[in-house]
């Protein structure tokens, strides 16, 4: 791509899945992109999550569904995307909630069918006699987060974009209503447009340009088992845990209580706790036929939430060339579409393919400063 005329210089602070997808979309549009990442691309929650690609609540849902089946071809690298999902119900309450999601999906024109226990066990053979039924979503799917984040990064490079790993963004310089450069541990980089998509650090960086993005960071955990023979549909979850059977055959599942953290000075360590025992119990309940299967890893990730748990995708007015992006703890699956939307915000000033106005920052204008306390989202004092 060298020698090609470059478009606007866009700096994306944050090499998580949202920042990477954004950079990829911008590079495809001809922008001269630079991703600033403090560690390794997708190293944090973006590369360590359930891998689900089925988010009917989002305004980006249709774009998510349109794009995922094409992502391997578009990126040029494997994502391990597989279609379809199964929701498993162990109680009638769980089944009733699944039915409600069927009705929502139908509203978008997607098919989901209810499964009786024998039909469920045929598609998800690890399910036991305790399941009361399930729902087969003939849409959505799952992918491998680790492989996907690297695929984005490589695709950006193939389009001539730069990714600066092990590089901390230190300060953002503004002049006359515009962000002009980002000062980093590897020098200062000038920009025409700036995107801040730095996960839990997004609030701190946004404060550099005077924007208040209310976020609370928290730690959540997952477990992984040794591989098992592949089930017909690996994107199967329920019983309060989310996850998938990987294409290698491992069961990778998470869920359960999170631990709220201080919203600044987030440590690089990602410690896990004995929660793996509760996750193991939930997984045995979900898949009784996997009771003998060995757990080989667990891990924790740190993710951020806005006060209402919904994303912020917003281009600021002052400075006018800065776009703020946080997916509020639900970012991986939506990433093909969120990158598209953020690209639109940065280059067009608005999202071209769907309405995302309700995700603007203005909704938090009247938020009291002690909102975390009011919502009970405060970190614990160490025992």
């Amino acid at each position, binding site marked *: 791509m060298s020698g090609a005329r470059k478009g606007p210089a866009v700096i994306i602070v944050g090499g998580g899945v949202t920042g990477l997808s954004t950079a990829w979309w911008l590079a495809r549009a001809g922008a001269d992109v630079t991703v600033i990442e403090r560690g390794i691309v997708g190293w944090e929650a973006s590369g360590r999550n359930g891998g689900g690609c089925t988010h009917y609540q989002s305004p980006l849902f249709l774009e998510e569904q349109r794009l995922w089946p094409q992502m391997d071809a578009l990126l040029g690298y494997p994502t391990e995307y597989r279609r379809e999902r199964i929701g498993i119900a162990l109680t009638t309450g769980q089944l009733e909630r699944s039915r409600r999601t069927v009705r929502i999906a139908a509203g978008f024109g997607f098919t989901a069918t209810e499964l009786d226990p024998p039909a469920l066990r045929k598609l998800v053979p690890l399910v036991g006699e305790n399941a009361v039924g399930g729902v087969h979503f003939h849409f959505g799917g799952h992918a491998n987060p680790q492989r996907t984040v690297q695929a984005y990064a490589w695709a950006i490079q193939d389009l001539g974009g730069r990714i600066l790993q092990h590089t901390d963004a230190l300060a953002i310089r503004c002049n006359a209503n515009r962000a002009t450069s980002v000062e980093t541990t590897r020098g200062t980089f000038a920009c025409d447009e700036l995107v801040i998509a730095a996960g839990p650090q997004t609030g701190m960086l946004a404060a550099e340009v005077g924007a208040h993005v209310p976020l609370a960071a928290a730690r959540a955990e997952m477990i992984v088992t040794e591989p098992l023979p592949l089930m017909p549909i690996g994107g199967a979850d329920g019983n309060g845990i989310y996850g998938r059977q990987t294409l290698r055959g491992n069961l990778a599942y998470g869920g359960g209580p999170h631990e709220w953290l201080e919203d600044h000075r987030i440590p690089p360590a990602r410690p896990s706790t004995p929660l*793996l025992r509760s996750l193991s*119990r939930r997984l045995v309940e979900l898949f009784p036929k996997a009771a003998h299967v060995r757990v*080989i890893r667990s891990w924790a990730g740190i993710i951020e939430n806005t006060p209402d748990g919904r994303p912020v995708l917003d281009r600021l007015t002052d400075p006018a060339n800065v776009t703020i992006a946080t997916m509020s703890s639900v970012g991986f699956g939506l990433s093909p579409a969120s990158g598209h939307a953020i690209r639109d915000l940065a280059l067009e000033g608005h999202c071209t393919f769907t309405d995302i106005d309700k995700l603007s920052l203005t909704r938090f204008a009247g938020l009291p400063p002690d909102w975390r306390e009011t919502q009970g989202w405060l970190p614990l004092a160490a025992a």
Partner: protein
Amino acid sequence: MIQDPKSIAGKYASPAEHAELLVIGAGPAGIAAAIEGAIAGAKVVLVDENPVAGALVGLDVPLLFGGRMAGASGSKERFTESVADSIPELEEAYDRGVDVRLGTYAWGAFVNGPAVASLPCNVAGIADEASSSMIGFGKLVVAAGARDLCMFFPGSHLPGVVGANALAAMLCKYRAFNGHRILILGSGALARTTVELAREQGLSIVGLVEVRPQPQEEIADVPLFANHVLLRAEGDEAGVRAAVLAPVGGGDEVRIECDTICLALGLVPNIELLDVLGAQLAFHPERGGFVPDAAPPTTSLADVFAAGDAAGLGSIEDPAFAAATGRAASRAALGLSHPPVAYPENPACHDYQRDWMRALVAAGGLEVMACQCEEVTRADLLGVQPPRYLGERPPAMAARDLGTLLSDGPVNQDQIKRLTRAGMGACQGRRCREQVSLLLALGSNASVDAIPLPSWRAPVRPLPLSVLAAGDETRSMRKHWDGWFGISKQWTPYADIGTEREDWVANFGLDDTEET
């Protein structure tokens, strides 16, 4: 004060039992630590995983047993007596009132620290074959020993390819070694002690193989194949039948009949639990690799101490040294004075390991496995290629390798693990992580100490879901469990935001407040 009911706050109960001093590992260091603690008046619990279940022996966890443990699939009880008998010092521990638990896995240990404040106290996860539980502790001494350094070659998957520590365990601890004719790779102190041990047991040592021109130690009355490397192991399902050697750099092959090939190339400190705890670890070559980055017996964690090989490889010549480190760790943990602990300065073992790895790569080529569990070859590892089960590799992948990844930043084994799956298998990387480091060091022309430690994660032993499953959860954990954060507005369909339907359709997540 309002508290998010879906958060971890208050979800963990205090563990049902508590040890003032918990010692993990009943080798010389751990036993000495436990006895010293008991003499000082502490309530001491000593856990050791031996005898481990046959299923783990089959996975080469924790040591490279290599299918040479007789009766491994039999009952665990069978070995318990043998293991207990092999540790005569245990009797004193019992007499001093130490709560000794053999056959008990310590699969995790956790303390509050950065990003965790939810634990009711310091806790360790323990388990037997049936169930797991948590045990609280005041202070912890990790005396988990060392494991075998593995390197692969054609045929290294065959039964009969064992590690030196595993061989010692099978001979002394389990008394269940089913081989007879042993070829040893390496000629250092570890090889020499292995020869001595095998001779005591009346086994035949058919030779020592050394890639360097000279033996590392004088070892009498054993045929030495210096300046030779192992080309391949030959055999069948029953195991190794012969080893084929050749001079380093090529030359006439030598075929040696044997049923066991013992890797005596080095040991690796067992730091798994220390990593899970969040202790700072660093590469200290004189102590054998990644060990606590603190003066032994301390670690960076106030309540956690390390002793024996887990704190750094001591001297094989001097087993009393391990006991001394154990006593010091225990005394330090209990706030008592102790003599200084000075680990011997081991020679540059990693240069030696690097020489071996280089010779094995030159002899065996790049199609040899780097990771057996995940079937990742050396070529796939160095090419940073996706696993073969994904099928045909896209054309763009051909332009990617370790070199292109290095242009993005320093080599990181965890990143390469995610891309190639090397080290992500059921043995938790015990068979491959050091040789993957060595291969990456060779492939990137870096020193092995420049390769960051790939992380260890709980459970540090592969244990079944049914064993780990918490049977002792609090009611709060059960009742307020949620699939994600339990923020009902998070799942409101976009079209309903700001409408009268907003509250009605909320709560669509994986939320489950029912008790199931």
